[in-house]
């Protein structure tokens, strides 16, 4: 009887597989074409709306929250880098500050922080009596130890550069110093940090895991692998057993958590899956996981199932999808050309037809998650406007048959929408586009080259919750890092350079007044995006999650797009 059921299911599955296969080929047939120019346009869409912010309620202790991730590079803060590693690291460790889902800073181990007048010296007052999971006290020395462990050359941390700007960091990286000369931990309750140049937003950087404190047992990560595999931190959760590579990580609540309210959950089971969001979604559907990311093709269907059940979360997060433009190379070396190209891209149509509404069109470069700095229409050229595009194209000398290159990374789900962009530019402006797809490392390498020209698919997510982390690394002159004949060494690979823009950012950096800084960032964005359109914003980073709201309350996405485990509670 049982057996029969198996084979019935199998037969059903086979027919489903056949349907899926035929659906795939159908999609291919309609993938191109579709865009008939400017005559008749789809109604502008803002994509799916964000789900409302939830109110955090009083929870109760207990329960196990289960989710899937892919295998992280490291869970030890010394080298935690991708969102999976940061997820685990932030449960195990709490730094000086924390941030809420919108990036607003909250006290962590530090109660309050102050800077001197020109923002070159920072003083953090630490909570006393907070403990590591092994009972050791968390004091200023523990922070100094943690930071030096990251900065030391022999640790070879891939993310050490987040500490750049602290006095003594360069010497430690060079291997000529054993300590951070700019960090004073002589008072256990006070951490004093000297910077090599003004940075009025330094405290925001300390939200990154590399700024975590570590206990005396941490030692050198290259030799003390026991700690790296099973770190002892001061966070709301502690390791429950070892990290089982490619299998999972189990966390349990740390009852003596001192840097905030203790967590509600008893345990968190993090299963490491082989196929990323596909497995997470399948696991959510078969009841294995309480939280899941989803592959793009299922988004629409999943939303229609789960939105009404209150199991769906949509948020615009701190990232941006855009086209990198080589602003010093023909044919994109004039503002008019860039604006013509941007205005000839119908973002709404692509979002509706290819993303099924799961993205929201960009109208700025600093994303809406930064409520104060966000300027809703700073990118006027982000609006589809065929007549204007044609006019500007003519001024810029983009004529019928002008050659333009486009490149993107292969096997990452970009084929379809990049083809649509190409199609629109060809139809709308008559450009002759040659588009290639290459492996991701090659894409990054090609972009850096001094003779790189045209458009490249790009995306950016902020490491620190400030608009500055969008503007400086991608658009400032120093972020080119090389002369015009050398490969770029920074992230400003489009080689945009504008002294007025640079000056505004420098001014913001040394301005202790937050409102004033926000204004300066807005002004800078107006220049680089509004006036110069130094890169072409496409759509916001819009993220979707599934959560088991039948069993849990307070489930929300944190600033790093992970479940905010410190507040989730069973019903």
């Amino acid at each position: 009887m049982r057996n029969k059921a198996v084979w019935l299911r199998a037969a059903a599955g086979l027919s489903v597989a056949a349907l899926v296969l035929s659906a795939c080929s159908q999609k291919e047939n309609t993938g191109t074409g579709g865009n008939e120019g400017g005559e008749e346009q789809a109604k502008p869409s803002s994509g799916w709306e964000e789900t409302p912010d939830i109110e955090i309620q009083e929870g109760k202790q207990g329960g196990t929250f289960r989710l899937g991730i892919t295998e992280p590079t490291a869970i030890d803060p010394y080298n935690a880098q991708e969102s999976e590693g940061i997820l685990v690291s932030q449960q195990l460790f709490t730094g000086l500050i924390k941030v809420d889902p919108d990036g607003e800073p909250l006290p962590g181990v530090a109660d309050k922080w102050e800077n001197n007048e020109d923002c070159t010296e920072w003083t953090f007052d630490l909570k006393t009596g907070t403990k590591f999971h092994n009972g050791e006290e968390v004091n200023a020395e523990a922070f100094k130890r943690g930071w030096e462990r990251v900065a030391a050359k022999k640790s070879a941390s891939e993310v050490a550069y987040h500490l750049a700007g602290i006095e003594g960091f360069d010497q430690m990286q060079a291997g000529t110093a054993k300590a951070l000369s700019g960090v004073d931990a002589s008072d256990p309750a006070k951490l004093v940090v000297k910077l090599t140049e003004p940075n009025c937003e330094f405290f925001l950087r300390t939200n990154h895991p590399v700024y975590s404190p570590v206990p005396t047992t941490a030692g050198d990560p290259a030799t003390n692998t026991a700690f790296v595999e099973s770190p002892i931190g001061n966070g709301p959760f502690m390791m429950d057993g070892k990290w089982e590579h490619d299998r999972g990580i189990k966390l349990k609540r740390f009852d003596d958590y001192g840097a905030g309210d203790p967590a509600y959950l008893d345990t968190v089971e993090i299963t490491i899956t082989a196929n990323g969001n596909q497995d997470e979604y399948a696991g959510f559907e078969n009841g294995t996981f309480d939280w899941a990311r989803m592959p793009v093709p299922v988004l629409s269907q999943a939303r229609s199932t789960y939105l009404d059940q209150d199991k769906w979360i949509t948020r615009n997060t701190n990232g941006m999808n855009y086209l990198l433009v080589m602003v010093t190379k023909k044919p994109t070396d004039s503002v008019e050309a860039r604006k013509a190209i941007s205005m000839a891209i119908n973002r709404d149509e692509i979002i509706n037809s290819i993303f099924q509404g799961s993205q929201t069109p960009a109208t700025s470069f600093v994303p809406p998650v930064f409520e104060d700095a966000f300027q809703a229409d700073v990118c006027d050229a982000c609006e589809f406007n065929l007549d204007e595009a044609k006019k500007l194209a003519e001024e810029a000398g983009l004529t019928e048959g002008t050659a333009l290159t486009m490149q993107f990374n292969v096997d990452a789900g970009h084929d379809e929408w990049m083809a649509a962009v190409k199609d629109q530019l060809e139809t709308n402006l008559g450009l002759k586009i040659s588009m290639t797809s290459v492996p991701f490392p090659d894409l990054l390498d090609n972009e850096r080259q001094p003779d790189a020209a045209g458009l490249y698919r790009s995306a950016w997510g902020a490491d620190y919750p400030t608009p500055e982390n969008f503007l400086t690394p991608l658009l400032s002159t120093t972020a080119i890092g090389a002369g015009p004949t050398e490969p770029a060494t920074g992230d400003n690979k489009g080689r945009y350079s504008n002294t007025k823009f640079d000056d505004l950012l420098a001014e913001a950096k040394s301005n202790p007044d937050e409102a004033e800084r926000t204004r300066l960032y807005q002004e800078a964005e107006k220049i680089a995006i509004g006036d110069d359109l130094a890169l072409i914003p496409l759509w916001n980073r819009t993220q979707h999650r599934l959560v088991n709201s039948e069993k849990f309350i307070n489930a929300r996405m944190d600033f790093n797009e992970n479940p905010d485990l410190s507040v989730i509670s069973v019903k």
Partner: protein
Amino acid sequence: MGKFVIRRLAQAIMVVIAATLLLFIGLFVLGDPFASTGDKVVPPETQEILREKFGLDQSLPMQYLTYLGNLFTGDLGIDFNQRREVSSMIGDALPATARLALVAIIIDVFIGVVAGIVAAIFRYSFWDVLVTILTTLAIGIPTFVIGIWLRQTVSGVWIFPGVPRSFTEVVPWYQEVLLPAFTLAIVDAAFIARLMRGSMLEVLRTDYIRTARAKGLGERTVILKHAFRNSIIPVVTYVGISIGILMGGALITETLFQYNGVGFLLVKSIGQNNNPVIMAIVTFAVLIYVLLSMVVDILYAYLDPRIRLS
């Protein structure tokens, strides 16, 4: 004989050196593993520290020689991504892959041989036609389709563990291995069935079988004792090759069923530009293959003096 073995051994070493050299150059051409993390450029200072740590600041020939030297002492180094001992990573994955290969072989030999014999004995019967149709289908459908289908329909049912499942759910290895083994076995079983059928038909036509029958031996004895032994030889050869391939890891199937074997490790490492792991796995696969074929050659030479002299 001794001379032949030495010559064959020298050849094997040459093959290993040539293969690793090609691989080394190939990986170098694939690009810089430390240029970026995600979308972000790694600062040049950090890249330099990383290159120094992993010995990539040496010249390419020097790197290759160091690698060869380490290989002989059994030191595979640490991986670029998690900085774990490569030998322990492979050590964890290898038993899983060996179990998978073994179970898959047992399944496909059993199914293939039985189906082949039945099809040969009852030639042109319903069963023969059925075997022909099924084997054609099995060979025609790509393994990943079979895998996806099994995963979606059978996993989580009866004795087959669910995929994905929580890592806290303990599944004994002989259950975990079932679905990936079936997936791998289906195509192989089809090949074996066809081999078996053809070779059985050939043997059944030979004189000594006619003699056996003429002596009045029962059909059962004729088939199982006389025909079977001779007709299984091509199958044994095929199975030998198949084991060699399976031991190198089943890339798609292992990934699909979240099976932590060598194949999945290789897939992951390629995605990460994790050269030390890629080098180690491919070198291992080459070694196994070279060793197996060397043993077979020596065996042949032992059995047939003509090969020794040529």
